[in-house]
């Protein structure tokens, strides 16, 4: 294992988040390359387990970067991987949010919003289908996914119950 250089880790994550258009999934491959293949700070198995763990935790999935930092170097490590996630995103977004709230009817903002909305929805549909194929390995899995979508569209049940039912089905070995 290489010696951990927190400053370098911080700067690398900062650079990645500055270009992370499209969100965390766009830079995940590079984070894996940097930590596992180039610097050997984590094994592949550790990387996958930490990633999965963050998916089960409540909160945005992107918090896996915090968990990686903490695993590597405690609180300082968590800060070194979390601050870069926060700073470029919030600064730029505040700036753009300010401009678009001040000039809500500027032709360019209206064109950007209404022109890109279908693309956003198309991309999210792509994420949904990629995720569906990644987590399901047989027809029972697909059935659960599609049944969930149908229930959510028709009923206003709290989806936490659906997630709990999914967890139970998993432990019972049904999926």
């Amino acid at each position, binding site marked *: 294992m290489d010696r951990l250089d927190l400053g370098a880790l911080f700067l690398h994550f900062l650079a990645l988040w*500055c*270009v992370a*258009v*499209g969100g*965390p999934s766009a830079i995940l491959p590079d984070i894996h390359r940097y930590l596992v293949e180039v610097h050997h700070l984590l094994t592949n198995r550790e990387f996958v387990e*930490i990633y*999965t*763990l*963050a*998916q*089960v*935790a409540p*909160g*945005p*999935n992107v*918090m896996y970067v915090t968990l990686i930092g903490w695993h590597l170097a405690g609180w300082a490590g*968590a800060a070194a991987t*979390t601050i870069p996630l926060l700073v470029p*995103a*919030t600064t*730029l*977004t*505040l700036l*753009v*949010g300010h401009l678009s709230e001040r000039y809500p*009817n500027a*032709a360019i903002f209206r*064109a950007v*919003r209404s*022109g*890109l*909305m*279908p*693309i*956003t929805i*198309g*991309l*999210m*549909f*792509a994420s*949904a289908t990629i995720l*569906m194929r990644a*987590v399901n390995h047989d027809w029972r899995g697909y059935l*659960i*996914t*599609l049944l*969930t*979508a149908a229930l959510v*569209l028709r009923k206003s049940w709290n*989806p*936490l119950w*659906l*997630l709990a039912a*999914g*967890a*139970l089905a*998993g*432990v019972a070995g*049904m*999926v």
Partner: protein
Amino acid sequence: MQTESHKPSVSRIELFLTFSRISLSSFGGALFWARRGLVEQQRWLTEREFAELLTLGQLLPGPNVLNLTVLVGYRFAGWSGAAASVAGYLGWPFLVVIGMGVLYQHYGALPQVQQALAGMSKVAAGLLLATVIKLAMVLPRRWRSWLFGMLAFVGVGVMRWPLLWVIGAVAPCAVFMAWKAKE
């Protein structure tokens, strides 16, 4: 085209609490819970406003829902509203995830945990699918919107081309045509 937004008055505390709740219920991805909290429960945003702010958040670097959080907080209570929203949205998960790191280092990965996770991940995929279907309902009934949506879906979801290429090719055309049509 543009429905004039009624803007409810929302305090910083409400922003903090709402984004805390969204964040702490976000098992398996935050988008579903953000839409449910902001559009269905609080009714701070219409379906269309939500889709517009999400689009803006997606164009900027960083996690989409975090950018959405900043935009919503700023819209209702200025920069301190944005700070309150982000604190609610990221503060709790930061602590939770570190708590899980402690458990992970002590107990490793139990098989039951892995199985429960597998079951939950299938449900989470269904939640995301339902969210996208609901959002797609606000698209104007016009061939152009559906064409660009389909192109983005096929490029990234079926062909698996790099996201930046697809956006770089499709987005300028979509914005240009919307600008010409004066939407």
